[in-house]
Protein backbone atom coordinates (compact mmCIF):
# COMPACT_ATOMS: atom_id res chain seq x y z
CA UNK A 1 0.00 0.00 0.00
CA UNK A 2 1.42 3.37 -0.96
CA UNK A 3 1.78 6.02 1.77
CA UNK A 4 -1.00 8.01 0.07
CA UNK A 5 -3.38 5.01 0.14
CA UNK A 6 -2.46 4.26 3.76
CA UNK A 7 -3.07 7.89 4.74
CA UNK A 8 -6.47 7.89 3.05
CA UNK A 9 -7.45 4.61 4.68
CA UNK A 10 -6.52 5.73 8.21
CA UNK A 11 -8.36 9.02 7.72
CA UNK A 12 -11.38 7.12 6.36
CA UNK A 13 -11.51 4.79 9.37
CA UNK A 14 -11.20 7.62 11.90
CA UNK A 15 -13.91 9.64 10.22
CA UNK A 16 -16.16 6.58 9.82
CA UNK A 17 -15.87 5.93 13.57
CA UNK A 18 -17.10 9.47 14.33
CA UNK A 19 -19.96 9.06 11.82
CA UNK A 20 -21.07 5.77 13.39
CA UNK A 21 -20.83 6.85 17.04
CA UNK A 22 -22.59 10.20 16.57
CA UNK A 23 -25.39 8.52 14.61
CA UNK A 24 -25.98 5.78 17.18
CA UNK A 25 -25.88 8.14 20.17
CA UNK A 26 -28.01 10.72 18.36
CA UNK A 27 -30.77 8.27 17.48
CA UNK A 28 -30.66 6.76 20.96
CA UNK A 29 -31.31 10.12 22.67
CA UNK A 30 -33.95 11.12 20.09
CA UNK A 31 -35.89 7.92 20.64
CA UNK A 32 -35.55 8.35 24.39
CA UNK A 33 -37.10 11.83 24.32
CA UNK A 34 -39.77 11.19 21.69
CA UNK A 35 -43.39 11.05 22.95
CA UNK A 36 -45.83 8.36 21.78
CA UNK A 37 -47.89 10.62 19.55
CA UNK A 38 -47.00 13.82 17.76
CA UNK A 39 -49.55 16.51 17.00
CA UNK A 40 -48.58 18.63 13.96
CA UNK A 41 -47.29 21.57 16.01
CA UNK A 42 -45.26 19.25 18.24
CA UNK A 43 -42.93 18.46 15.36
CA UNK A 44 -41.31 21.79 16.24
CA UNK A 45 -41.81 22.00 20.02
CA UNK A 46 -40.45 18.49 20.59
CA UNK A 47 -37.06 19.78 19.38
CA UNK A 48 -36.74 21.71 22.66
CA UNK A 49 -37.23 18.63 24.80
CA UNK A 50 -33.74 18.09 26.36
CA UNK A 51 -33.10 14.49 25.20
CA UNK A 52 -34.40 15.28 21.71
CA UNK A 53 -32.23 18.43 21.61
CA UNK A 54 -29.12 16.41 22.58
CA UNK A 55 -30.05 13.86 19.93
CA UNK A 56 -30.43 16.57 17.30
CA UNK A 57 -27.05 18.05 18.29
CA UNK A 58 -25.38 14.67 17.84
CA UNK A 59 -27.14 14.20 14.51
CA UNK A 60 -25.68 17.54 13.38
CA UNK A 61 -22.22 16.17 14.27
CA UNK A 62 -23.20 13.09 12.27
CA UNK A 63 -24.20 15.17 9.23
CA UNK A 64 -20.98 17.21 9.28
CA UNK A 65 -18.67 14.21 9.76
CA UNK A 66 -20.49 12.30 7.05
CA UNK A 67 -20.14 15.19 4.61
CA UNK A 68 -16.45 15.37 5.46
CA UNK A 69 -16.09 11.64 4.82
CA UNK A 70 -17.90 11.93 1.49
CA UNK A 71 -15.52 14.67 0.38
CA UNK A 72 -13.02 11.92 -0.41
CA UNK A 73 -14.71 8.52 0.00
CA UNK A 74 -17.16 6.73 -2.35
CA UNK A 75 -20.84 6.61 -1.39
CA UNK A 76 -20.85 2.87 -2.21
CA UNK A 77 -18.05 2.50 0.37
CA UNK A 78 -19.44 4.81 3.06
CA UNK A 79 -22.90 3.22 3.09
CA UNK A 80 -21.98 -0.35 4.05
CA UNK A 81 -19.10 0.63 6.33
CA UNK A 82 -21.16 3.06 8.41
CA UNK A 83 -23.88 0.41 8.82
CA UNK A 84 -21.72 -0.88 11.68
CA UNK A 85 -23.97 1.44 13.68
CA UNK A 86 -26.74 -1.19 13.66
CA UNK A 87 -24.37 -3.63 15.37
CA UNK A 88 -23.48 -1.00 17.96
CA UNK A 89 -27.20 -0.35 18.64
CA UNK A 90 -27.84 -4.06 19.25
CA UNK A 91 -24.82 -4.37 21.57
CA UNK A 92 -25.71 -1.19 23.45
CA UNK A 93 -29.25 -2.50 23.91
CA UNK A 94 -27.78 -5.60 25.51
CA UNK A 95 -25.31 -3.78 27.77
CA UNK A 96 -27.32 -0.73 28.78
CA UNK A 97 -30.93 -1.85 28.58
CA UNK A 98 -30.53 -5.58 29.29
CA UNK A 99 -32.22 -6.49 26.02
CA UNK A 100 -31.76 -10.07 24.90
CA UNK A 101 -29.97 -10.66 21.62
CA UNK A 102 -31.88 -13.45 19.90
CA UNK A 103 -30.20 -15.87 17.51
CA UNK A 104 -31.85 -14.06 14.57
CA UNK A 105 -30.29 -10.87 15.77
CA UNK A 106 -26.83 -12.46 16.18
CA UNK A 107 -27.15 -13.75 12.61
CA UNK A 108 -27.92 -10.20 11.45
CA UNK A 109 -24.94 -8.83 13.39
CA UNK A 110 -22.65 -11.41 11.76
CA UNK A 111 -23.98 -10.53 8.29
CA UNK A 112 -23.44 -6.81 8.81
CA UNK A 113 -19.91 -7.35 10.13
CA UNK A 114 -19.19 -9.62 7.14
CA UNK A 115 -20.53 -7.00 4.73
CA UNK A 116 -18.48 -4.25 6.34
CA UNK A 117 -15.35 -6.43 6.25
CA UNK A 118 -15.93 -7.24 2.55
CA UNK A 119 -16.32 -3.61 1.54
CA UNK A 120 -13.92 -2.04 4.04
CA UNK A 121 -11.14 -4.58 3.58
CA UNK A 122 -11.67 -5.41 -0.06
CA UNK A 123 -11.57 -2.08 -1.81
CA UNK A 124 -9.97 1.31 -1.60
CA UNK A 125 -12.26 4.01 -0.13
CA UNK A 126 -12.01 6.06 -3.32
CA UNK A 127 -12.52 4.86 -6.90
CA UNK A 128 -13.85 7.94 -8.68
CA UNK A 129 -11.22 9.89 -10.56
CA UNK A 130 -9.74 12.64 -8.48
CA UNK A 131 -10.25 16.18 -9.64
CA UNK A 132 -7.30 18.58 -9.64
CA UNK A 133 -6.62 19.89 -6.15
CA UNK A 134 -9.15 22.40 -4.89
CA UNK A 135 -7.48 25.82 -4.66
CA UNK A 136 -7.64 27.00 -1.08
Amino acid at each position, binding site marked *: MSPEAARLRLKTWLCSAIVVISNVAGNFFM*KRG*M*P*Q*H*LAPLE*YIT*VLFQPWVALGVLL*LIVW*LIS*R*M*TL*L*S*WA*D*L*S*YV*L*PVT*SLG*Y*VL*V*ALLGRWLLDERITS*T*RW*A*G*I*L*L*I*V*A*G*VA*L*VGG*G*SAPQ*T*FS*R*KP*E*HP*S
Partner: protein
Amino acid sequence: MKWVLIAIIVASTSIGEVLQAIGMRRHGEIRDFRPGALGRAAGSLARNSVVIGSVVAMAVAFFAYLGLLSVTDLSFAVPVTAITYVIETVLAKYVLNERVNWLRWVGAAIVLCGVALVSL
Protein backbone atom coordinates in the same frame (compact mmCIF):
# COMPACT_ATOMS: atom_id res chain seq x y z
CA MET B 1 -50.13 6.85 6.28
CA LYS B 2 -47.31 4.54 7.29
CA TRP B 3 -46.46 3.59 3.71
CA VAL B 4 -46.70 7.17 2.47
CA LEU B 5 -44.16 8.17 5.12
CA ILE B 6 -41.90 5.27 4.14
CA ALA B 7 -42.04 6.24 0.46
CA ILE B 8 -41.17 9.84 1.36
CA ILE B 9 -38.29 8.70 3.61
CA VAL B 10 -36.79 6.30 1.06
CA ALA B 11 -37.02 8.77 -1.85
CA SER B 12 -35.74 11.82 0.02
CA THR B 13 -32.94 9.88 1.76
CA SER B 14 -31.67 8.45 -1.53
CA ILE B 15 -31.86 11.79 -3.35
CA GLY B 16 -30.35 13.68 -0.39
CA GLU B 17 -27.39 11.36 0.09
CA VAL B 18 -26.53 11.23 -3.60
CA LEU B 19 -26.71 15.05 -3.79
CA GLN B 20 -24.52 15.20 -0.68
CA ALA B 21 -21.91 12.97 -2.33
CA ILE B 22 -22.03 15.07 -5.54
CA GLY B 23 -21.68 18.33 -3.62
CA MET B 24 -18.81 17.12 -1.44
CA ARG B 25 -16.99 15.63 -4.40
CA ARG B 26 -17.27 18.94 -6.19
CA HIS B 27 -15.79 20.62 -3.14
CA GLY B 28 -12.85 18.22 -3.01
CA GLU B 29 -11.12 16.35 -0.21
CA ILE B 30 -11.08 18.10 3.15
CA ARG B 31 -7.45 17.89 4.28
CA ASP B 32 -7.03 20.76 6.69
CA PHE B 33 -8.77 20.19 10.02
CA ARG B 34 -7.72 23.40 11.77
CA PRO B 35 -10.77 25.43 12.92
CA GLY B 36 -10.17 28.33 10.52
CA ALA B 37 -9.90 26.07 7.50
CA LEU B 38 -12.98 24.09 8.56
CA GLY B 39 -14.89 27.35 8.92
CA ARG B 40 -13.90 28.42 5.42
CA ALA B 41 -14.94 25.00 4.07
CA ALA B 42 -18.31 25.33 5.85
CA GLY B 43 -18.72 28.80 4.36
CA SER B 44 -18.12 27.64 0.82
CA LEU B 45 -20.37 24.58 1.33
CA ALA B 46 -23.20 26.77 2.63
CA ARG B 47 -23.17 28.53 -0.75
CA ASN B 48 -23.02 25.26 -2.73
CA SER B 49 -26.52 24.76 -4.16
CA VAL B 50 -26.13 20.98 -4.45
CA VAL B 51 -25.20 20.76 -0.77
CA ILE B 52 -28.16 22.98 0.16
CA GLY B 53 -30.45 20.72 -1.88
CA SER B 54 -29.08 17.66 -0.08
CA VAL B 55 -29.67 19.20 3.35
CA VAL B 56 -33.26 20.09 2.38
CA ALA B 57 -33.93 16.54 1.14
CA MET B 58 -32.41 15.05 4.29
CA ALA B 59 -34.45 17.40 6.49
CA VAL B 60 -37.61 16.16 4.76
CA ALA B 61 -36.46 12.59 5.42
CA PHE B 62 -35.70 13.47 9.05
CA PHE B 63 -39.17 14.87 9.80
CA ALA B 64 -40.87 12.03 7.93
CA TYR B 65 -38.79 9.63 10.04
CA LEU B 66 -39.92 11.38 13.24
CA GLY B 67 -43.47 10.91 12.03
CA LEU B 68 -42.88 7.23 11.24
CA LEU B 69 -41.33 6.60 14.67
CA SER B 70 -44.41 8.08 16.29
CA VAL B 71 -46.72 5.61 14.49
CA THR B 72 -44.55 2.46 14.32
CA ASP B 73 -41.80 0.69 16.25
CA LEU B 74 -38.10 1.14 15.58
CA SER B 75 -38.04 -2.57 14.72
CA PHE B 76 -40.31 -1.87 11.76
CA ALA B 77 -38.92 1.52 10.74
CA VAL B 78 -35.27 0.45 10.55
CA PRO B 79 -35.43 -2.62 8.28
CA VAL B 80 -37.99 -1.07 5.95
CA THR B 81 -35.90 2.06 5.35
CA ALA B 82 -32.72 -0.04 4.89
CA ILE B 83 -33.83 -0.58 1.28
CA THR B 84 -31.99 2.71 0.62
CA TYR B 85 -28.70 0.73 0.76
CA VAL B 86 -29.52 -1.03 -2.47
CA ILE B 87 -31.06 2.00 -4.18
CA GLU B 88 -28.11 4.20 -3.29
CA THR B 89 -25.52 1.62 -4.39
CA VAL B 90 -27.21 1.52 -7.81
CA LEU B 91 -27.22 5.34 -7.92
CA ALA B 92 -23.55 5.39 -6.84
CA LYS B 93 -22.68 3.32 -9.88
CA TYR B 94 -24.80 5.06 -12.50
CA VAL B 95 -25.01 8.63 -11.21
CA LEU B 96 -21.74 9.04 -9.32
CA ASN B 97 -19.74 6.75 -11.67
CA GLU B 98 -18.11 4.88 -8.82
CA ARG B 99 -16.45 1.58 -9.61
CA VAL B 100 -18.78 -0.73 -7.70
CA ASN B 101 -16.92 -4.05 -7.78
CA TRP B 102 -18.56 -7.38 -6.84
CA LEU B 103 -17.28 -7.07 -3.26
CA ARG B 104 -19.34 -3.90 -2.84
CA TRP B 105 -22.48 -5.38 -4.42
CA VAL B 106 -22.22 -8.44 -2.17
CA GLY B 107 -21.39 -6.21 0.79
CA ALA B 108 -24.44 -3.97 0.23
CA ALA B 109 -26.73 -6.99 -0.18
CA ILE B 110 -25.36 -8.74 2.93
CA VAL B 111 -25.69 -5.55 4.97
CA LEU B 112 -29.33 -5.14 3.85
CA CYS B 113 -30.13 -8.71 4.99
CA GLY B 114 -28.21 -8.16 8.22
CA VAL B 115 -30.05 -4.91 9.01
CA ALA B 116 -33.38 -6.64 8.38
CA LEU B 117 -32.45 -9.53 10.70
CA VAL B 118 -31.11 -7.31 13.48
CA SER B 119 -34.25 -5.20 13.60
CA LEU B 120 -36.87 -7.93 13.19
